[in-house]
């Protein structure tokens, strides 16, 4: 697979990746693992494992990681630019339209925007739930999450400091944030906690 083909594939993935990371991963699996067979499913899992602890947009990092695997630095750069291009252009067009429309409609647009914002709030609560399920597995983790939210809402503490403080807490006592490894957990008798599903 040459760099032009690689770029074109990632433009296609970038166009269809509505809903972010989950869809991106399934598209990578379809195009690069199944159709082209230039990557193994193992490579995709590996890219997730090693970008999980890095800060930043996971979708872009998975694309960069795999692009590098396929074509070195040029591959990583082209794949990522190709992946981001549709989103960037789409957002640019919306930004321009928004400027025009709010200028014209002013206050009459407010109810519609409130409706949009309310829907975003609902989707965001669902996202919080989905993110929290795998990431918050201990009481300490739960307390840190609640404290972070409360400190921000009530006292207006800068989120950057909250993240830094929680990260340092994680360095000092990692075992309080990570559940015991599944090797031990799975072997322990399954009926000790009545499994609800």
């Amino acid at each position, binding site marked *: 697979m040459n760099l032009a083909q690689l770029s074109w594939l990632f433009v296609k993935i970038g166009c269809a990746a509505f809903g972010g990371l989950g869809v991106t991963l399934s598209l990578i699996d379809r195009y690069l693992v199944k159709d082209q067979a230039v990557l193994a499913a193992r490579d995709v899992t590996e890219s997730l494992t090693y970008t999980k602890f890095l800060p930043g947009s996971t979708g872009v990092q998975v694309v960069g990681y795999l692009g590098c695997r396929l074509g070195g630095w040029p591959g990583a750069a082209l794949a990522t630019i190709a992946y981001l291009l549709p989103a960037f252009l789409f*957002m640019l067009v919306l930004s321009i339209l928004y400027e025009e429309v709010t200028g014209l409609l002013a206050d009459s647009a407010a109810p519609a925007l409130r409706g949009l914002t309310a829907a975003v709030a609902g989707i965001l609560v669902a996202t919080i739930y989905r993110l929290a399920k795998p990431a918050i597995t201990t009481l300490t983790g739960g307390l840190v999450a609640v404290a972070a939210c409360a400190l921000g809402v009530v006292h207006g503490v800068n989120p950057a400091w909250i993240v830094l403080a929680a990260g340092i807490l994680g360095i000092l006592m990692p075992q309080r944030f990570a559940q015991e490894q599944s090797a031990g957990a799975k072997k322990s008798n399954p009926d000790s906690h009545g499994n609800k599903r």
Partner: protein
Amino acid sequence: MILLELFVYFAIISMLAFGGGNAVISLLERISVEEMRWITPQDFAVAIGFAYITPGPVLITSAFIGYRTAGFSGALVATVGVFLIPWLLSVLASHQVRRYIEHPWLQGFGLGAAPAVIGLLGITVFILGRYAFFGWLYWVVAGVALVLTLFTKASPVLILIGGTVLGAWAGPLLID
């Protein structure tokens, strides 16, 4: 110099995004609305809505904020700023620099930071709610959006369009 400012702040935001783009939405709001006053709270709510409508990562919101602040070059600089360093880190990781990633300090930091960034998302819900929740209609919209997202495969695009249309149609009747 506004472009340099955009680049630096978005780069900082990206480096604190432990757990992905969604993790720094509240920090994005804090910096672009409250501290730098690049955009209004209403702009921010719209930007997040647009980020859900468009394909790709949620941090493409940066293009909107950059555009509102400094036009096309602002959009470009903010977008490059928010993706460049995480991208570099991932390519370096791909280049067998894994021992740094497996360093217990970085792992521990990630473990501790993850719950905090999720809790911080709650602040964003409060901020969006303060702007949106004028009357029961908008609570219903948010509740329906939550239920649809959690329990069905409904496209977020359709949910957002539904919320917008309902707000535009029924909103004026409620407030007056």
